[in-house]
């Protein structure tokens, strides 16, 4: 049983307090959906969760062990999808996945099933520079299927996806949670997922007058 939680988190970007005193806790098989208006800190929170960004206040822990203690172990247990697709145009579609699979686990056997799941198997040998925006997004999502990791952090994964790819993503998340995985998604869309928890980032916004107190 894994428990991923954050306590009293604060985030300051460009001198502006984005959110303060934010708490979250997710455990095996749960899906947490981050909602909030643009600029409410959904992406920042996901980067905090990934360990790419250090919190200004509070702490994040996995099974009680703080993230900053062992960032490599945390990196190994998570998949992160940001705004950018991290697709290399000079490589083929399959190579784009197998390069990350090789770097993360050394095991490339999950690459073709992942491509098939997102309908990219017939494009496996073409250069990725020929892909459309939606296909590049599919390729980025297929990357997280290619190697196992218990924690998925998805930042607006539905951007540019068509209905078929959206269904594939929903299936992937359902399978991930059935296997005991944790999924944290920021999205403005309604995903067809049952029993999800929602975190409204607007609830943790700080009005500008009190923001300086947090920073000090």
């Amino acid at each position, binding site marked *: 049983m894994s428990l991923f939680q954050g306590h009293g988190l604060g985030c300051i970007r460009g001198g502006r307090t984005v959110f303060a005193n934010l708490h979250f806790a997710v455990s095996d098989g749960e899906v947490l959906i981050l909602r909030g208006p643009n600029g409410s800190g959904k992406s920042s929170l996901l980067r905090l969760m*990934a*360990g*790419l*960004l*250090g919190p200004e206040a509070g702490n994040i822990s996995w099974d009680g062990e703080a993230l900053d203690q062992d960032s*490599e*172990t945390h*990196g*190994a247990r*998570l998949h*992160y999808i*940001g*705004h*950018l*697709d*991290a*697709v*290399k145009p*000079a*490589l083929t579609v399959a*190579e784009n996945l197998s*390069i*990350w699979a*090789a*770097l*993360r686990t*050394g095991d490339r056997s999950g690459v073709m099933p992942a491509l098939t799941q997102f309908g990219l198997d017939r494009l496996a040998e073409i250069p990725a520079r020929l892909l459309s925006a939606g296909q590049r997004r599919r390729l980025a999502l297929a990357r997280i299927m290619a190697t196992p990791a218990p924690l998925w952090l998805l930042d607006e994964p539905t951007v540019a996806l068509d209905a078929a790819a959206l269904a594939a993503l929903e299936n992937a998340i359902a399978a991930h949670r059935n296997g005991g995985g944790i999924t944290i998604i920021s999205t403005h869309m309604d995903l067809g997922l049952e029993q999800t928890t929602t975190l409204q980032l607007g609830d943790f916004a700080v009005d500008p007058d009190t923001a300086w107190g947090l920073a000090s």
Partner: protein
Amino acid sequence: MGPRLVNGFGRLVGRELVLVLRQPGDVATVLMFFVLATVMFPFGVGPDPNMLARIAGGVLWVTALLAAMLSLERMFQIDFEDGSLDLLALLPVPLWVTVLAKAAAHWLTTGLPLLIVAPVLGVLLNLNPAGYIALLSTMALGTPVVSLIGAVGAALTLGARRGGVLLSLLVLPLVIPVLIFGAAAVDAAIAGFPVRQHLLLLAGMALAALVLCPWAASASLHQALE
């Protein structure tokens, strides 16, 4: 380094080499710059063979350093722009291993080709035969230093506008010691003096850069990712 880090390092170098070799034009550009910049000198200072022989060692070192600057900017910039750097930072290996792998790949695709072409250009500049071994051995020790210091510069200028120029302004002053001892060793060898102390100093610089630069560059990359 444990076996996990060695494996991770090997795979990261492999990734870099695949990415560079898919676009071999980048390596060719660096080499063409090295050749053209060197060929300019006989036109500029005149074709007198004695004059060229006297400046050959220094000219080759300066043009090689300038050529190496051309490919430094790419070290992190492309991965930063397409989001791959986030994923590299989340790999189960420490970021300094990634930096070391990128510097190694930069040396293999820039320093090593420059090293191979340099003797040919030496002939063009009428370099004294006694200077070739000193030229090659100092470049073999000095170009890794350029790649390592360059990694720090590339990490520091990440995301800056016109980062390439800024990068050269940062890195070139720092590699002046390499230039001094590299070029001096070639002159010493031609004059019949021993070059051992030059090589030892360059080896010391290489070891210091090997320890300090990956650490400094990874700290800078963590800043850039925030």
